[in-house]
């Protein structure tokens, strides 16, 4: 396994975490702006006329340890943030770990708070915490209507083709996230016949690029999935799992991970292990957040705006 990111690149990415970043792709070159910068304002105005959707991730409803004793309140704060975005988002994507322990009451609470966003539809993919019992049967009953296999699916909206993948089931000893042959064959078929100019958005829980294998932050067979995506001009990959903003661009594929609404995790390699990170109470909400993703037809790039619940001082 190769590490796709060197330490310097990693630190560069990490400097953005929690600060609120708008990034766009121009000819495959990522450009980032602070959220309060003038460019961000212009982009926000442009967004009002385009097609946008929301990404939330890792709500972990049911978690109650020191890193955040009220994850329902911070999910609710994220939903309030989304209500303030404006521009009528078409839908919301939840990239998994809806619940902490796959309990019906935890899913119920998450559903109830997510409904407060008043966004017509939310698309889900499971995190490993959502499929802890019955091999994910309960997850699929609640969120997987009309999906294939362990809960993968695709749909089209606003001229963009969206693909939701599952990389948290049938994991193998010593491995990372895993898609499996059945899902990969489905993906190949699903993309066949799509023109190369179709913008593609792929979303899954565990990163589909190798962020930090020592902590399990990657997907064993993602290279095969990415090989099917290479011929497309605009591909955006949205993940969760690592509870912090990171991005990478490889050819025409832009990778982006979202903040959690529940608790932050350490930057790769800065702690003995991943897991809930305890931070001073006044910093917590600067490290939690949601994201808005925009696509303006004819302009190609999708822009991701990461919005912390509270801006860092």
């Amino acid at each position, binding site marked *: 396994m190769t590490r796709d990111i060197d330490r310097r690149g990693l630190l560069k990415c990490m400097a953005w975490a929690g600060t609120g970043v708008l990034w766009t792709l121009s000819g495959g070159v990522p450009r980032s702006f602070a959220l309060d910068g003038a460019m961000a304002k212009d982009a926000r105005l442009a967004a009002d006329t385009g097609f946008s959707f929301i990404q939330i991730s890792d709500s972990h409803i049911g978690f109650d340890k020191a890193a955040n004793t009220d994850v329902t309140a911070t999910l609710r704060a994220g939903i309030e943030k989304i209500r303030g975005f404006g521009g009528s988002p078409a839908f919301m994507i939840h990239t998994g770990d809806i619940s902490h*322990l796959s309990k019906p009451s935890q899913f119920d609470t998450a559903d109830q708070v997510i409904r407060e966003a008043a966004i017509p539809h939310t698309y889900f993919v499971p995190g490993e915490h959502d499929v802890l019992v019955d091999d994910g049967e309960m997850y699929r009953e609640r969120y997987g209507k009309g999906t294939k296999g362990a809960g993968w699916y695709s749909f089209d909206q606003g001229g963009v083709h969206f693909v939701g993948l599952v990389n948290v089931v049938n*994991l193998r*000893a010593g491995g*990372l996230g895993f898609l499996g042959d059945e899902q990969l064959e489905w993906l190949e078929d699903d993309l066949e016949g799509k023109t190369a100019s179709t913008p593609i958005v792929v979303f899954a829980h565990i990163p589909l690029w190798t962020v930090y294998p020592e902590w399990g932050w990657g997907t064993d067979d993602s290279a095969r999935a990415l090989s099917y995506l290479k011929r497309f001009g605009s591909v955006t990959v949205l993940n969760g799992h690592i509870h912090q903003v990171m991005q990478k661009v490889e050819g025409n594929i832009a990778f982006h991970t979202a903040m959690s609404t529940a608790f932050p995790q350490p930057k790769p390699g800065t702690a003995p292990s*991943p*897991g*809930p990170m305890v931070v001073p109470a006044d910093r917590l909400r600067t490290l939690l957040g949601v994201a808005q993703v925009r696509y303006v037809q004819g302009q190609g790039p999708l822009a991701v705006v990461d919005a912390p619940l509270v801006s860092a001082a």
Partner: protein
Amino acid sequence: MIGMKRIGALAAIFAVTALATRYTASAEDATQVSIDNFSFTPATLTVKAGTKVTWTNRDDIPHTVVTADKKLKSTVLDTDDTFVAVFDQPGTYTYFCSIHPHMTGTVVVVP
């Protein structure tokens, strides 16, 4: 929450009584594996056949104990939950956390 943890621990013991034909509960034979910072400590444990091995999750994140062949599977262990297994047959058992599969451990059972 306390109630939930108890149920978790009971379920783990329940699973093991079904699985273990011989149950040796004497203190001398008992051995502990700690799950801490997303790792099993000790990573390799050598025990005599019939030893009771107890895993305790010290992390703020749930983990599991599952052998590579999936024949032995714990329930989901939340913080402070335990899982007990008795290894009767000599051999090398590699196991992992099915939620975080990069976490692996080995139990070597000697006659």
